[in-house]
């Protein structure tokens, strides 16, 4: 199990003159669940967006599933196919039904026959418990249902890694649980997950490791239990005291 599937070494990234990521070192092993937390503007989202190269880093190396992400990369689409992503704003395709949202990539990217990709889509839609909504358009679903559809859409590509960028931050409180339940199921199934989230209850339940970021650096990175019981850094303590109030 201790095989690293994601490895970031001394990664630096700037937006113009502003440095968003400073000397980031991080490793995620196969099957590991990592939660990244920290105040807003600390670079957490940028960090995970670098992992599937929605953002490009300027210095350091990022290796995902044995392939280094750099300018010479020709098959970035192939890597993205192996790395599923769930966004804060769901980003479902509003012009397609939920079923088509899920079946589109398997049939056009994975080149599965149309019927087979719809079967795959239905399989994952029932896994996230919205199979009955398959024929509806995203606009007709609640936020929680949309986010579960988005998770199913990413899973349909049968990725090796799942990235979650604040998946519950745009949801009403009563819908957060249904999304987290789906994520817990997924975690129990052995998926490698990197999650940017402030849901500390969720973190305690599923995370193997918690990474705390502030101002573009990783301040503290520890096993879950240790992180909560024994935080070392003052900033971590302050953050925890605010969020666990």
């Amino acid at each position: 199990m201790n095989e690293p599937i994601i490895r970031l070494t001394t990664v630096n990234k700037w937006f113009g003159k502003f440095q968003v990521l400073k000397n980031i070192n991080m490793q995620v092993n196969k099957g590991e669940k990592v939660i990244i937390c920290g105040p807003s503007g600390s670079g957490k989202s940028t960090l995970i967006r670098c992992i599937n190269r929605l953002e490009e880093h300027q210095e350091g190396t990022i290796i995902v599933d044995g392939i280094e992400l750099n300018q010479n990369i020709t098959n970035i689409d192939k890597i993205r196919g192996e790395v599923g992503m769930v966004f804060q704003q769901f980003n479902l395709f509003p012009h397609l039904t939920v079923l088509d949202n899920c079946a589109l990539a398997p049939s056009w990217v994975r080149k599965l026959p149309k019927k087979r990709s719809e079967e795959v889509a239905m399989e994952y839609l029932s896994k996230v418990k919205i199979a009955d909504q398959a024929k509806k358009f995203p606009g007709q679903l609640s936020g929680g249902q949309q986010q579960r559809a988005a998770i199913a859409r990413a899973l349909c590509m049968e990725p090796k890694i799942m990235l979650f960028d604040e998946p519950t931050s745009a949801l009403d409180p009563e819908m957060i649980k249904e999304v987290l339940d789906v994520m817990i199921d997924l975690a129990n199934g052995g998926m490698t997950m990197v999650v940017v989230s402030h849901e500390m209850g969720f973190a305690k339940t599923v995370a193997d490791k918690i990474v705390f970021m502030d101002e573009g650096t990783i301040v503290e990175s520890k096993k879950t239990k240790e992180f909560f019981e024994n935080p070392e850094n003052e900033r971590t303590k302050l953050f925890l005291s605010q969020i666990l109030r």
Partner: protein
Amino acid sequence: MRESKIYNWLKENLFSTWYNFLITLLILVIIFYSIPNLIEWAFIDSTFRGSTKQDCKGTGACWVFIKVWFEKFIYGFYPSDQIWRVNLVFISLLLVVSAAFFVKQKFKLYIILFLIFIFPVISLFILRGGVGLIYVETRVWGGLSLTFILTFFGIVISFPLGVLLALGRRSELPIFRYFSVMFIEFWRGVPLITVLFAAAVTFPLFLPANASVDKLLRIAIGIAIFESAYIAEVVRGGLQSLPKGQYEAAKSLGMGYWKMNFLIILPQAIKTVLPGITNTFIALFKDTPLILLVGLAELLGMVNLAKSNSYWLGMAVEGYVFTAIVFWFFCYLLSLYTQNLEKKFSTEKKS
């Protein structure tokens, strides 16, 4: 009950304030004085029977003019005994298009591809003749059928070209971006008339002596390129209205540039700018009479020819009214069709 309803409606909509009252009164007066005259002119005092100008004895419209010249207005100087070829092309176009409404989604794509790539070639062959059919020069094509040919050709070429230009203008590769910007800004900056003149008169000067491209084809290409610049800007507006998240979601699923654009981005962008696209196509349809200036006569051009025929002098009003009605009818048809499309495409009722 009913009467009070009408009364309320009148009061609310026509006589609610003193200035609304005045405007309503003014409009009523105008209607009262103009409509009876119009009806008298068009229907009561008008002449429908006959075959020469002399048959028109009444003070009203002489619809005989339209009747006698009808074939010319529709087909131009296309030989009378060959007109079935024009009819064949347009009837088959109508059939293919209406077939597109009834078949499954999957076949719709094939029909569209057929309409873009194969149908123009077949119809060109039928209309122009040559092998097996009597050769009919494009010089004698004219009337409403020519309006349709130019519009159809214009739409079929300018739409895909415009979409590519819109994508090019937003491309990350400078070559494509600069090329698209220059292309769009150039063609959008010149008047259509100069494009037509250039296509008809100037362009052949640059060709080698023995090479020649059909004049109608040159003009059709000129119009199509001109319109593509407008389509490009309309589509670009749609592309810019899409949230960044749609691009990111498509990328994160492993879609490359073309898949992302054709499956996710363009369907949404085109849907939002459908009214603008319709606008451009209607403008294209209504701009076709300009080809008059380079010696081709579509509907309005034929009317102009007919009204200056020495046996039919003084028929301008009838001719222009007829032209206006025909143009309005087809523009409205196009507008209705796209309204229908907009309704069909609207999937985000909430959100």
